[in-house]
């Protein structure tokens, strides 16, 4: 798993049926990368629902949430619609798990991403990362603390 201080590898992945998204397009914003095993599984649902709820607080701290799993773009599209998610879900689908592997959070046995969080600064450098147990929702507290720390250091 990539550690803080590392520049986050760029990627280009489908964010919808036709649209693609890169990491570099978010330069100037803080980015919260949320790797998770699968759409529709109960724990992920709660985790993403929580980030959806806290999204306004994230936005106030100039941060953009991006979810990534190996599910395909159509699966993501219908999942986002059904759950009213306000942030993009990227399909690490072809070649499967390529981005998850680049971040060191791919589980070969399950063929899914691990449940992992990365908080990047405005220049795309990883400032905080966290690997959760697959079955455990890591909550939002760690992300908030990381963002607040970055905010504090900025003002010094």
């Amino acid at each position, binding site marked *: 798993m990539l550690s803080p201080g590392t520049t986050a590898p760029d990627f280009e992945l489908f964010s919808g049926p036709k649209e693609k998204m890169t990491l570099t397009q978010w330069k100037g914003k803080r980015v919260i990368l949320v790797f998770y095993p699968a759409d529709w599984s109960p724990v992920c649902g*709660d*985790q993403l*629902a*929580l980030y*959806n*709820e*806290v999204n306004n*607080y994230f936005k106030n701290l100039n941060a953009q949430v991006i979810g990534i799993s190996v599910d395909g773009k159509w699966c993501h599209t219908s999942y986002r619609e059904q*759950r*009213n998610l*306000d942030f993009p879900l990227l399909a690490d689908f072809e070649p499967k798990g390529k981005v998850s592997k680049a971040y060191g959070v791919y589980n070969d046995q399950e063929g899914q991403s691990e449940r992992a969080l990365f908080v990047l600064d405005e220049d795309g450098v990883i400032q905080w990362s966290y690997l959760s147990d697959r079955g455990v*929702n*890591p*909550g*939002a*507290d760690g992300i*908030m603390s990381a963002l607040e720390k970055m905010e504090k250091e900025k003002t010094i």
Partner: protein
Amino acid sequence: MPLAIPVSNLDHTWGNSKAAIELVEYGDFQCPHCGRAYPLVKELKYTFKDSIKLVFRHFPLTRVHPQAMAAAVAAEAAAVQDKFWEMHDMLFDNQAYLNIESLLSYAETIGLDIAKFTDDLQDSSLHDKVENDFMGGMRSGVNGTPTFFVNGERYEGSWEGDNLARYIEEQFGVKQ
């Protein structure tokens, strides 16, 4: 993970204020899991009587549960008239019906001053109180509902069936 904000007189508490056992629930009135936990929590009152104090804090997931915020504010508005727990019970007893007409009828059933209740529903400070509960919960590692804290420490086990009651009994040696 411990509770970020300790229980204070700003909280809605039920039972003996000096009880040895303090159970905090972070809940959402429109959350079906909370609805299922509700009778189990209620039973703890009768099981542990004077040994337990219950605390309810709001953790509405409003994007999944569009009526959760209004319901939480309704409970706060009832609290202004000292009837938080009466409204809490009404909301969980009638979880499928949380529109404004229903909220008003519950207010009437529990004997609230309706004009005052209607005014208070618009009070932004009550809305803020719900949000503060949510933020405090988030900072305590609450990641969904219901989440329980026993004497300030997060309860990680299952709350289903009599698991929570058994845990409390083991921790405190209180006889059921």
